């Protein structure tokens, strides 16, 4: 019996080819947009969650400034004493201070400006872990590397930063001082981070002698079993007291990495949700279209319905015939929509990666595909519900009379 409904549905869809295709087209367009947007949203959440869980779980980040200030502002920094204080806090297992500056990079007469980071070479591991990067080509920084630098991923790509890709052993000028390139980091996935330059903190102070003993960032790792959020809170309080500041007046920020990244993720999710909401307006319009077509179909087939009823079809049979018909339209539309959505999202992902944003990578979980197909069928069936009910309630005699 069920199969017969489907058979009926296909039959009448094929009979009214043009109209059915137009309906399928309208569902398809909406589902394509929604599918593509959701797959990007999923990709982003996956990226953020990976960051938060894999690397961020036990990490705490301290940074200078806040409000209007810039991290480059020379008036805001952590002193050695403050760093020592944080390092010695209970529950802090690993600790590494960092510093940064804006720097001028020159290679073959081309000049760029980028962020230069000074790292503690003993604790490179902690930094690599937090940024989920590692040196791919070449070697890590080690103690005593003064005029040596490790470059971000994008420096090895032609025409990205410099026309000619840089290689291990190349020499570049940083603030007019010649430095040797000893390695390249793996890709982070956004152009800013991928164009950063890393050197040892000793090297950094050689380049910027006035910065000696000043730090801009610190990364801490909570010992296992400790709640990083509590440690961040305690550290904030400790430093606030040390600086003689009241609550809410901090000129520094200490948060767990998870908090920072979750905030970032939450904002992205809201933006994505708004886009999906806007895109789903078209799905609503498609549903209205299907409903319209089904009303027409009922009208056209009034006589047919009369005959079916006369030879014994029950109200529920008629109801099902029309619901399945509109459901099938919705399903086919959704199927094609998923296909097109997949193609569009993959192409979009490739374009984003090309532009240096490989973090914008769509993912296609199975639930999304099944969900879209089910949604398409249900949407179609639901749109057909009122027309179908109308059809099922037609009086056989009147329906037969209908002209």
């Amino acid at each position, binding site marked *: 019996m069920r199969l017969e409904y489907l058979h009926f549905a296909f039959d009448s869809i094929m009979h009214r080819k043009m109209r059915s295709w137009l309906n399928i087209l309208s569902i398809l367009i909406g589902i394509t947009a929604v599918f593509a947007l959701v797959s990007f949203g999923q990709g982003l959440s996956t990226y953020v969650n990976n960051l938060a869980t894999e690397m961020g779980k036990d990490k705490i980040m301290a940074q200078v400034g806040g409000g209007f200030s*810039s991290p480059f502002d020379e008036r805001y920094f952590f002193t050695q004493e403050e760093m020592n204080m944080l390092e010695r806090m209970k529950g802090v297992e690993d600790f590494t201070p960092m510093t940064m500056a804006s720097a001028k990079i020159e290679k073959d007469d081309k000049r760029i*400006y980028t962020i230069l980071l000074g790292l503690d070479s003993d604790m490179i591991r902690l930094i690599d872990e937090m940024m989920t990067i590692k040196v791919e080509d070449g070697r890590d920084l080690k103690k005593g590397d003064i005029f040596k630098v490790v470059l971000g991923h994008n420096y090895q790509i032609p025409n990205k930063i410099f026309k000619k890709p840089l290689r291990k052993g190349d020499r570049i000028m940083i603030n007019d001082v010649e430095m040797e390139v000893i390695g390249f980091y793996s890709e982070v996935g956004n152009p800013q981070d991928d164009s950063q330059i890393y050197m040892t903190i000793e090297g950094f102070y050689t380049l910027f002698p006035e910065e000696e003993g000043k730090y801009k960032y610190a990364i801490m790792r909570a010992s296992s079993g400790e709640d990083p959020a509590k440690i961040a809170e305690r550290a904030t309080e400790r430093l606030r007291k040390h600086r003689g500041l009241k609550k809410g007046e901090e000129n520094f920020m200490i948060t767990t990495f998870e908090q920072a990244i979750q905030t970032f993720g939450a904002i992205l999710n809201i933006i994505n949700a708004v886009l999906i909401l806007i895109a789903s307006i078209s799905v609503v319009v498609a549903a*209205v279209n299907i409903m319209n077509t089904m009303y027409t179909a009922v009208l056209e087939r009034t006589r047919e319905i009369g005959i079916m009823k006369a030879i014994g079809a029950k109200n529920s049979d008629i109801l099902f015939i029309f619901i399945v018909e509109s459901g099938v339209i919705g399903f086919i539309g959704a199927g094609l929509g998923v296909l097109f959505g997949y193609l569009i999202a993959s192409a979009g992902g490739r374009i984003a990666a090309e532009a240096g944003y490989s973090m914008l990578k769509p993912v296609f979980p199975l639930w999304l595909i099944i969900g879209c197909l089910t949604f398409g069928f249900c949407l179609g069936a639901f749109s057909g519900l009122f027309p179908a009910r109308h059809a099922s309630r037609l009086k056989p005699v009147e329906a037969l009379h209908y002209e």
Partner: protein
Amino acid sequence: MIQEHFKLAVKNIRQRKLRSWLTMIGIFIGIAAIVSLISMGEGLRVAITSQFGFLSTDVLTIQAGGVQMGPPGTGVINPLTVDDTEKIGKVAGVKASISRIVRSADSEFNGRRNMAYVVSIPDGDNRREVERIANIEIDKGRLLKDGDTYSVVLGAKYGTDDIFGKPVSVGQNIVINDAKFNVVGIAKEKGSFIMDNAVVMNDETMRELFDDDEKVDIIAVVVRNVNEMDDVQERIEKLLRKERNVDKGEEDFSVESAKKALETLNDTLFAVQLFVYIIAGISLLVGGIGIMNTMYTAVLERTKEIGIMKAIGAKNFDIFVLFFIESGYLGSVGGAIGVTFGALFSLFLSFIGNAALGSGLIRAYFPWWLIPGALLFSFSVGSIAGIIPAIGAAKLKPVDALRYTK
């Protein structure tokens, strides 16, 4: 003749009430979404760009190169100097060349601390220029004048509870970077985040406070004649290239007209808006498909009617116009209802935004083109969707059409 076409079209739509309504709902939803999104989006864009509305058209700004994070002048490698400002002042076509310092500082009042955004104002004739460029107007007290030491004019936000928990009044003292300052005036509210939060002090005082006699964060150049803007810019670039010993194409500084900066910002915002509109526009496309579908059905249903009309002398063109008007009508009526609802919805949203959130960013703004544009667009969607079915109807052979049975 056309009048009759219209009458016939409206009659046909009325006869198929339910279908027509459903078709129009399709267009209505799309247009309502687009109208409300565009008006909110434009409102947001106007709100954002008006933050920078104080930028005058006759001003060039010069900054040294570097990674900029935060206020101008941070993160530069080779800063501009007072000497550069003086040399630029001698360039032909330059009316005034003004050194400006922009820094963040700690401010203290009422036992509370806050990170403040401090800007300098020069002495002499240039003071008027900066007041004009930055559009500084006084609400209470007075503007700064030459010779005022350790005195400040505060942005409008300082006159409220927002910053220190209680308003700062004229005559009171406020501590900035551990130095005591006398508040001589509170500026008028400008609705600009930057200006309303700024602390203005005389150049000399600021140099002393930050212990810096040389560095300039930003040079503001007022040109004598707005039409010569590009020439003056070129001359300044040439001078600075020579001063800083760099070749063309490798400048470690930027000279930009305020207008251009605003245009760039505008373009970026517009690109984002366009993306959102396109996504919303998809629903309109789907609505158009709905109209096409309805028109195909209408042609099919009225095949016999078309046959009769042709038999009694209707030309192909008449039949075409008949269906074309019908679909255009569906589009425009749906569009008109959509425009109304969309506009009401965004007014409602901006009311909520103002009343509940007190946010000036959520406000409806209707550019002049929006409503006529949306109406025209919905008419076009309707009529374009009707073209193919109408051609189909027009091409029917009278004999076949007469014989047609469902």
